[in-house]
């Protein structure tokens, strides 16, 4: 079972898919924390900006955003580059893909984290303040760890959707597993076989993530009384 010699190519694409997914998850988590902090802050301006961010992202298809950033980013960067006297810069589909997916899921993470933070028992935060912690210490030592449990189901859901969204990077020419499967399908005239393999590999990633998320859930629920 070597898939007409194309198995290594597909697996290399799968590694790239996972790379894109993990990197964009990191960006999404950072943006999500910032967004949640902005939405829960006292500043009207920060609330407004975060509100526009999440509404825009949830209203526009990911594919449109991705092509916009891929083709448009190219122009912006080269306009800036012209001013600074750089050579022509090619925006790689990898960077465009990771940035777009991170940017999109940052909006979903914002909502997830906001919900998680709101679910933290206020007494715990008051207790931290009573101990004389600065608000930064309260956030990193109390709110974050306590929020993780509440945010985990939403977080897991976002991750699973994110993994599937990575398939879109093949549209802007990144050689992920779907793109490579297309190459193999064209060469062997066996498109069904190759796309089916890609589908199964996606199911594999989802199944493994499910196990990981279950483990995390157990870990973060330690000490929670179950009825």
């Amino acid at each position, binding site marked *: 079972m070597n898939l007409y010699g194309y198995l290594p190519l597909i697996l290399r694409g799968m590694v790239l898919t996972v790379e894109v997914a993990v990197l964009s998850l990191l960006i999404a988590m950072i943006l999500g924390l910032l967004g949640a902090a902005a939405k829960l802050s006292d500043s009207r301006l920060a609330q407004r900006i975060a509100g526009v961010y999440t509404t825009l992202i949830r209203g526009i298809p*990911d594919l449109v955003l991705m092509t916009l950033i891929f083709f*448009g980013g190219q122009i912006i960067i080269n306009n800036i580059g012209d001013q600074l006297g750089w050579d022509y810069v090619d925006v790689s589909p990898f960077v465009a893909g990771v940035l777009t997916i991170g940017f999109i899921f940052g909006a979903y993470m914002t909502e997830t984290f906001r919900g998680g933070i709101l679910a933290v028992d206020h007494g715990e935060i008051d207790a931290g303040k009573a101990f004389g912690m600065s608000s930064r210490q309260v956030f990193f030592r109390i709110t974050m760890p306590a929020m993780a449990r509440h945010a985990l189901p939403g977080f897991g859901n976002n991750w699973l959707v994110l993994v599937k969204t990575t398939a879109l990077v093949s549209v802007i020419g990144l050689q992920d597993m779907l793109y490579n499967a297309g190459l193999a399908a064209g060469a062997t005239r066996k*498109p069904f076989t190759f796309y089916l393999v890609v589908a199964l590999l996606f199911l594999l990633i989802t199944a493994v993530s499910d196990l990981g998320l279950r483990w995390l859930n157990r870990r973060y629920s330690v000490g929670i009384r179950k009825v």
Partner: protein
Amino acid sequence: MDFAVIYNNLPLYFSGMWITIQLLVLSLVAGLTLAFPLALMASSKNFWLRVLPKTYIYCFRGTPLLVQIFLIYHGLAQFDAVRESFLWIIFREAYWCALIAFALNTAAYTAEILRGSIAQTSAGEIEAGRAYGMSNRILYLRVILPSACRRAIPAYGNEMIFMLHGTALAGVITIVDLFGAAKIVNSRYFVPFESFISAGFFYLCLSFLIITGVKYAERHWLRYLKV
């Protein structure tokens, strides 16, 4: 930025939008119709009745929509049996392939939403129905399904938005939907910002339309939950 190009191409955008709306409405209607029997079977106590719909839901929710579209549009042509049958009239058209993929995909997500809300029906409601001597069929028709459908509205609203985003993938397989129109304008005049931002704007309008509709539906059918 020069939006005159967009203004001159508005008819193209509008015809694309019409295709997008067609794809969205038809796939949602077909998906919803399929989802009911799937959800009822998936919530059955009988393992053999539940295993097929559960597998179907798992596979379609676990793989990217783009892969599903490719499997149907590019993949099925691999089989001579399909190419020689009368079905080829359908499967050689990108439009029908996209529609079938969308309908099958949203059917799986909708079935899972419905299954979840059926499982959440409070035991008291079911016991009350049984106490009145309702048969299983009557119980489902008069108690479980009405209450489950109400509770499914918010999640189904999200699914409709996701499906709207999903229809943009039709543009990848040569259909001139809203995204396809933007792609044409971009490649003809090389105006990535104007073309994709306009498409994004139209998608945003459609999203708001759906959100407003869902809000009205919630206000009507979930009024008893408002304090």
